[in-house]
């Protein structure tokens, strides 16, 4: 198990252009860690968590910052406990976004170029709620993702899958009065990376959201139901609790599916609780868009 001495090696490795097209089929470096190595580590952590739960530990709801199977985390997690602080003034508010900031068309990732992107067209829809179930109205949602072939438009993603000239993979929207968001996009492909030999990320869409308080800020990833890569992925598995993991998986929704057009997925996001004392207007969702 690689922990300290060579950790930097992995960090750099992830940035290097991916293997030559055929290299993945002819692994030459016997020292490279395999999926079996990584899966054994993930399993051991999972079993320790199951024992802790049985002994009465509280279920974990967030990813572990210290999760060695995700090699890039080894030198990038705080080793000291997070310090409790009561949020003050500025932290009890979020920046305001509105339709000056985001055009309505930015929520459709399939119309940003001259032609139709390749792949399976999907609708992803849901609500942003705070921990008390209040809708987060008029707030910014940003997404980014790989194309249908699993390729990102990013100079560091050089693996041999095709770019799609009709797909960038970036979208934004402002939530409605009921906290709702909706994107039209293409189902992203699985993405190979260099955490270990034959590492593949399950298909995912990156989501970035703001709440009503800055303390609710979250960046996360939405996954698709039934992905066979879930047990193998150190990033998904960094959330050790199955119920918590399930909160990142969208539900297929046939009611949302549009005939002869797009498959529908539903995914609601719950932010942490607001610490602010709410006025009546805010509680009914009038905050946010001043346009």
């Amino acid at each position, binding site marked *: 198990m690689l922990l300290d001495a060579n950790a930097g090696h992995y960090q750099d490795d992830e940035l290097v252009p991916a293997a030559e097209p055929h290299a993945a089929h002819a692994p030459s470096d016997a020292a490279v860690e395999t999926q079996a190595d990584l899966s054994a580590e993930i399993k051991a952590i999972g079993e320790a968590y199951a024992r802790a739960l049985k002994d009465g530990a509280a279920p974990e709801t967030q990813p572990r910052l210290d999760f060695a199977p995700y090699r890039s985390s080894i030198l990038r997690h705080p080793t000291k406990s997070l310090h409790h602080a009561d949020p003050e003034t500025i932290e009890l508010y979020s920046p305001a976004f509105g339709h000056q900031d985001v055009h309505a068309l930015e929520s459709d990732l399939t119309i940003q170029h001259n032609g139709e992107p390749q792949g399976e067209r999907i609708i992803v829809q849901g609500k942003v709620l705070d*921990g008390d179930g209040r809708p987060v109205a008029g707030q910014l949602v940003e997404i980014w993702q790989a194309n249908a072939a699993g390729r990102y438009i990013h100079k560091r993603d050089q693996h041999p899958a095709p770019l799609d000239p009709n797909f960038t993979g970036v979208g934004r929207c402002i939530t409605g009065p009921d906290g709702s968001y909706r994107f039209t996009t293409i189902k992203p492909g699985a993405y190979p990376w260099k955490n270990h030999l034959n590492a593949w990320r399950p298909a995912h869409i990156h989501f970035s959201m703001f709440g009503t308080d800055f303390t609710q800020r979250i960046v996360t990833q939405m996954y698709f139901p039934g992905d066979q890569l879930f047990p193998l992925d150190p*990033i998904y598995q960094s959330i050790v609790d199955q119920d918590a993991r399930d909160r990142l998986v969208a539900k297929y929704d046939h009611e949302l599916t549009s005939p002869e057009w797009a498959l529908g997925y539903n995914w609601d996001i719950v932010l942490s609780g607001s610490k602010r004392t709410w006025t009546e207007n805010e509680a009914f969702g009038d905050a946010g868009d001043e346009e």
Partner: protein
Amino acid sequence: MSKLTPTPGQTVGPFYGYALPFNKDNELLAPGSPGSIRLQGTVYDGAGEAIPDAILEIWQPDSEGNVVQRTGSLVRDGYTFTGWGRAAVGNSGVFTFTTVNPGPTEAGAAAFISVAVFARGLMNRLFTRIYLPENEEALAADPLLSSLDPERRSTLIARRDADGGLTWDLRLQGGNETVFLDFERSEGATQ
């Protein structure tokens, strides 16, 4: 008390670079305009290496200490101070913002900038604060700072540069690790 369980965070990953940055994202006001200062720093990992793939957001009151609730952060008009900005670090791990010195939000309070940090390899965003170095009395009375031992406390206080700007480095791990904040009492760092 929260009634619903929050959705877990996940790492921002390596590929935010074509998605999260936007034009003038790090210019809360135009560089060189009256009152503008440079806020800069470097993000380091536990080996003391600057990291090239972190992205920071700052959120702060205006110079009078007012919490601003104006739209226009993503499409800046060059005149409206929105209080929020975003800066990806460059290849050498350095980030730069153009902003104003935040005012204290209450009389006598220590003035600070709220920070959220995201990085490849960082499983969940981290929160911290950047305090202005000048008002020692206010710093001494600050509830957060006074709950920290002096060595750790110093990680939250910026240095004043000769040009009037602020320098503040962020260390994700290691001896001089930045103090990161838990507003929930439930997110333990290293469990």
